């Protein structure tokens, strides 16, 4: 018998249809019901208007969409014979605001989603502190707003640069928000200094901690999430950034990649209409997001966890927490590399002179985000968006399940729902 379970309190809404046999999940399909048609809304519009429209695909990662759009348009400029050279300052500031958006996402996920859910599965009565996540996220958003004017839904990245022209006062302000976040993270989240946390090499190092993080870690162990939730043990990173290298990994073996091998197909969702797609690389499923980035980036502690617990739900959750740590440190480095005397914007020809296709790829909080735009005389002919949740979750058949479907198999329904959430589900992006 198929039972339907509604998943709310994710980004948007999803339904999972479970086929339970002998008390464990035999198979599950997933439906994402709400469709907004952003790609067709964009058709016929001035290509620059996409800088305002695409951030509105998603309230939690709109900045990643903005960056994918700006990269796609700049790629179209290049393909039309007008390459744009960005100053170092522009690149760094864009990276900084993207990094802060990933951090705000992870803080919300840790405190509003994963700790409360892990507590439920542990029948724990621990007092929940979801607002810690909102607080930390709001500080990260302030750091974004210093350069981007506001978060969510900024449009400060434009082909050729950024609209802002920051001063040293702005830089100091951004630095102080990052410092505030680091001390919050040390005091409230991990219970040890950021440096010490980043020097951890083995899970045994966690035993000394008493913090939200150690609670999460031991609770995951307690419900044996280190033995469950395995996907394909294949990872994919496509966006090129100061904090990530494109690579495809089979277990720990890296291979080079090219975004042109990404394809999408309709999902298999027999019990409810779904507007999601399945995204694949060379026709195979890969897991994307923080765990993939940590594996590709050779992060010692995560590789260590992976050696012991493979791509279990435990490793997936821990990789997200560690990404907060590595990105906080990286954010500081980025800020220290900004030379405010460099140009914020380099003028190129008017968009109406551009007829070309452009592809923009970025690493969003949940993994690679691809925008492809076809421009004719400055107007959008075609716009296509592929999102990380289409790689991780989608919905396929039993013989060829998506990473999330595979990870839910052979667990109880409650565990399966938890494992589903370890992928940090974004339904709004998926169906855009």
């Amino acid at each position, binding site marked *: 018998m198929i039972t339907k379970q*509604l998943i*709310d*309190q994710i*980004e*948007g*809404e999803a*339904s999972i249809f479970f086929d339970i046999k002998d008390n464990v999940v035999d198979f599950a399909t997933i439906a994402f019901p*709400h*469709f*907004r*048609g952003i790609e067709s*809304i964009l058709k016929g519009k*001035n290509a*620059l*208007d996409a800088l*305002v*429209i695409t951030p*509105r*695909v*998603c*309230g*939690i990662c*709109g900045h990643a969409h903005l960056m994918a759009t700006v990269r796609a348009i700049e790629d179209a400029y290049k393909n039309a014979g007008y390459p744009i050279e960005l100053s170092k300052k522009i690149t760094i500031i864009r990276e900084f605001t993207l990094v802060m958006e990933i951090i705000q996402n992870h803080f*919300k996920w840790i405190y*509003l989603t994963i700790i*409360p859910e892990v507590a439920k599965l542990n029948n724990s009565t621990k007092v*929940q502190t*979801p*607002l810690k996540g*909102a*607080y930390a*996220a*709001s500080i990260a*958003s*302030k750091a*974004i*707003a*210093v350069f981007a*004017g*506001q*978060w*969510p*839904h*900024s*449009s*400060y990245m*434009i082909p*050729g*640069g*950024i*609209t*802002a*022209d920051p*001063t040293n006062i702005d830089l100091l302000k951004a630095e102080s928000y990052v410092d505030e976040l680091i001390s919050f993270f040390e005091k409230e989240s991990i219970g040890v200094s950021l440096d010490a946390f980043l020097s951890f090499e083995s899970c045994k190092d966690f035993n000394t901690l008493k913090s939200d993080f150690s609670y999460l870690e031991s609770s995951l162990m307690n419900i044996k999430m280190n033995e469950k939730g395995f996907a394909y043990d294949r990872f994919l990173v496509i966006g090129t950034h100061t904090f990530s290298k494109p690579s495809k990994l089979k277990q720990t073996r890296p291979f080079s990649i090219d975004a042109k091998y990404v394809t999408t197909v309709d999902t298999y969702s027999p019990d409810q209409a779904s507007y999601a797609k399945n995204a694949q690389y060379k026709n195979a499923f890969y897991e994307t997001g923080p765990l993939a980035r940590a594996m590709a980036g050779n992060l010692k502690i995560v590789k260590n966890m992976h050696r012991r617990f493979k791509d279990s739900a435990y490793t997936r959750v821990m990789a997200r927490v560690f990404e907060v740590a590595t990105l906080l440190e990286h954010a500081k480095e980025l800020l220290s590399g900004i030379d405010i*005397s*460099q*140009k*914020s*914007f380099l003028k190129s020809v008017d968009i109406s002179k551009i007829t070309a296709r452009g592809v923009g790829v970025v690493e969003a909080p949940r993994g690679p985000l691809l925008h492809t735009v076809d421009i004719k005389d400055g107007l959008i002919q075609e716009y296509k968006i592929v999102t990380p949740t289409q790689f991780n979750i989608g919905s396929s058949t039993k013989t060829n399940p998506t990473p999330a479907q595979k990870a839910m198999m052979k667990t109880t329904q409650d565990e399966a729902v938890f494992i589903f959430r370890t992928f940090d589900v974004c339904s*709004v992006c998926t169906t855009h």
Partner: protein
Amino acid sequence: MHSKQDKKPSIIWFQGLTCNGNTHSFLNLENLKNLLDKFEILSHPSLPSTQNFNTVLSCTLECDIFIFEGAYDPLMKRNDTLVSKIVEYYAKSTKHIIALGSCASFGGLFKASAPDRNSGLLFNEQEKSGPLLKYESKVINISGCPIHPEWLAYTLHMIAKGREVEINKLHRPIELYSTLAHHGCTRNEYFEWKVDADDFGEKEGCLYYKQGCRAPMTHSSCNKILWNEVSSKTRVGTPCFGCTEPDFPRQNLFATKTNMSIPEDVPIGIAKRSYLTMAGIAKTFHIKRLEGKLIDYKTAD
């Protein structure tokens, strides 16, 4: 209409066709806890709630404030229940309806998902013809894409105190939407003396003449109640896109529409001829301070 001290007003926050942007903007509120402590959250897309979502859908609850985020699509279903049925049920039984964001207020961006049927709760763009016409007196529109968290906090605090939120013709609180986004912009002096920004990425110049700034035609308090307590679009050189107005999103957002190099739209309430006379005079002056760089760094390049 004082609410009793012992019972906190209850809130159901419900979503139509949305990006979750208002939800995430709200989570940025300073002292979020102080506000939440004054209410009982029956249901919210991401905050801890006392009721589960299926109970909300069963239409058996009562709430004091019904917050609706996103565009209204009469055919949309949440877990097999028509949104139209849910909206009708809560609109009838609740005391206050807040249409949160430009989609819920006027249709906004996601009106374009199905332009013939989608709308805001009370308005379809400018026109008062939405599904909640019957409950008009309960509806407060907080437009914006997204809303500023303080705008919602203000409205909720007023309701909690039992004070009336005065609204205008478009059902927006007058304390938030009587000013223009232009009020308080750090580029105001450039606007006065008609010094336009040469290009993006500069501290100097006003974005009204070339870069498409809609702030003089947009009701909001973006440059007064700063975003994330830090800044605003125009302060970082991004033109205002007029996201609080019923016609958002317009087209060609990064360029000013002009007729013979005169902006097509002039600031609200100013006759075009008066504007042009004033602009013409201002342009005859050459003010060195406003024409050069604001700050001269000793640069390497």
